[in-house]
């Protein structure tokens, strides 16, 4: 008997019980839909995270305070006096695989222009920082050497802050006030950055930028910076650059825990780890759904075998060999699960499309995930079909014929 004849018989018997076939496919449908959606959503999200991280500048290395240990919950003074402004040049000189480095101090203050005020997050740094993170000026100018040397009271605004404070007015050359505690400082707006949007947890658009010396010498009077943003020469040497920076600080403080040096590559792999955890978790749920689906398939095939015991007897009497009966029911179970897989594929794609749309990341249903899902449902059909099918194949023709 030709395979095609067997398939035709199998399809016919499925079509004869449409509702029942659909119900027993439900598990497979849900399982496959889950697999497709999970893979699509998580790889889309992962892609978006990667894109975002790269948008924060490529091959970035962050140097910040480490966590001090064993001081009974007391934040040790030593952690905040590690980094000086001058260190930036020393680090750069001693770490050949660093491309660029910029010290920074983060702070905040109330920004006032005429009657308008906004609570502003402030980053005080050097022009190198903006080069590294690709933040370009929309208008005005960058900090000059003199601005830094003389700690001049100048400010560059993020695009949101500029519109919030000035609306239609051209902010360049205007004075804004920044209030810090009891003191007020007058800052001259020298530039506005282009909008970059929210990137991960960072939004430069809602910040204002000062020369790091201005903050240290005038606004806060501190000797130390919070940390450094640096950039490795390339992705390949990022880890070496990290090691060089760590060595620099180890020589100084003889304690690796005091300083935290993180490369973006690590952050990328953290993002991937996160996406993978997500995939494993939901993949587990999908597997359970597929298992339940498989049991559904087994059940429907068993019911079908029992219902058609007489038919099996007739076919055997007419000369059907065991193999033919086995194939007939295996093909039937595979057809159910493949068909369920197809429905699940459609369903999962729609879900993935919706979620990707809402999440605003690229929609990805790859040929690979389709192949995996279809392969899986095929295998489930085979695996869970074997028991009922071999039961059918082993039926005794006389018993089967006299089955009521």
């Amino acid at each position, binding site marked *: *008997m*030709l395979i095609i*004849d067997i398939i035709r018989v199998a399809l*016919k*018997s499925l079509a*004869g019980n449409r509702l029942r076939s659909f119900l027993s496919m439900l598990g497979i449908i849900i399982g496959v839909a889950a697999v497709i959606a999970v893979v699509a959503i998580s790889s889309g999200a992962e892609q978006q995270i990667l894109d975002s991280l790269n948008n924060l500048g490529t091959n970035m290395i962050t140097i910040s305070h480490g966590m001090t240990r064993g001081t009974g919950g007391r934040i040790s003074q030593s952690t905040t006096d590690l980094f000086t402004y001058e260190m930036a040049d020393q680090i750069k000189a001693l770490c050949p695989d660093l491309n660029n480095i910029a010290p920074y101090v983060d702070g905040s203050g109330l920004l006032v222009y005429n009657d308008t005020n906004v609570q502003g997050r402030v980053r005080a740094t050097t022009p190198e920082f903006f080069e590294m993170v690709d933040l370009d000026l929309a208008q005005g100018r960058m900090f000059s050497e003199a601005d830094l040397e003389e700690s001049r009271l100048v400010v560059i605004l993020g695009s949101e802050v500029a519109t919030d404070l000035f609306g239609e007015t051209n902010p360049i050359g205007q004075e804004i006030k920044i209030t810090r505690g009891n003191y007020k400082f007058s800052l001259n707006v020298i530039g506005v950055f282009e909008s970059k949007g929210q990137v991960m947890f960072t939004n430069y658009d809602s910040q204002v930028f000062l020369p790091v010396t201005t903050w240290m010498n005038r606004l806060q009077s501190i000797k130390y910076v919070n940390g450094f943003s640096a950039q490795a020469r390339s992705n390949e040497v990022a880890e070496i650059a990290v090691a060089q920076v760590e060595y620099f600080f180890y020589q100084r403080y003889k304690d690796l825990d005091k300083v935290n040096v993180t490369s973006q590559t690590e952050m990328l792999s953290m993002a991937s780890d996160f996406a993978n955890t997500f995939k494993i978790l939901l993949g587990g749920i999908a597997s359970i759904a597929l298992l339940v689906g498989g049991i559904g398939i087994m059940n429907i095939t068993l019911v079908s075998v029992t219902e058609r015991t*007489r*038919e099996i*007897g*007739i*076919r*055997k*009497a*007419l*000369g*059907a*060999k*065991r*193999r*033919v009966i086995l194939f007939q029911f295996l093909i039937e179970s595979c057809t159910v699960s493949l068909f369920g897989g197809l429905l699940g594929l459609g369903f999962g794609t729609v879900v993935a499309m919706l979620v990707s749309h809402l999440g605003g990341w690229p929609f990805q249903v790859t040929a690979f995930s389709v192949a995996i899902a279809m392969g899986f449902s095929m295998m489930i059909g085979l695996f869970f079909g074997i028991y009922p099918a071999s039961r059918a194949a082993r039926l*005794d*023709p*006389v018993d089967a*014929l006299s089955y009521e």
Partner: protein
Amino acid sequence: MIQLQDVSKIYQMGQVTVEALKGVSVTVEKGDFVAIMGPSGSGKSTMMNIIGCLDRPSKGMYKINGTNVEKLSDNQLAELRNKEIGFVFQQFHLLPRISLAQNVELPLIYAGVSSKERHHRAQEALELVGLSDRAHHKSNEISGGQRQRAAIARALINKPSIILADEPTGNLDTKTGEMIMSLLIDLNNLGNTIVLVTHDPEIAAYAKRVVRLRDGLINSDEVNPVPRVVGGGE
């Protein structure tokens, strides 16, 4: 040719053993027409199942066309049924979901015949039993007599040497039964060996030979000197 030699069939039902056949020896030559009679439970169906290679003897030997079935595998038995035996059942045993033509084709599917030839031969067989206009009906759309005729078409489609009919007229009225018998007589005249089980002496009268079973043993085995002719019953 059918040769049964000391054939026994023992069913084990828990502690109880039922001996449905207790050593039966019969030989049916090619072209013969045998009716098997006997009271209910005497082992007629059991014997037919063994002759039809649906079941194997518990003891004794069964040879069909010279082949001893004892040495054959289940698959070889299936092949033998497909090629050598045509079954006609009391309950017709047509598959309900497919058309008569598709039912009739089934033995050819298992014989690996191409679909084109299958259609052609199914049409021929249905014509022979007078059902060519019902080829695409399903079995529940036709009468009992028509169903049994379709079953006969299915039985003869792969040109078997032996046709086995277990109470083929049991579910039919006398007139329809006669029509079925006339078909079987035609097939016998074409050279097919026919073995038929019946309770009805009127039906047995068509056969050339009558074997009577009682309690799993052969009670009598007589040649019918003047087989009844269809239409000349009275």
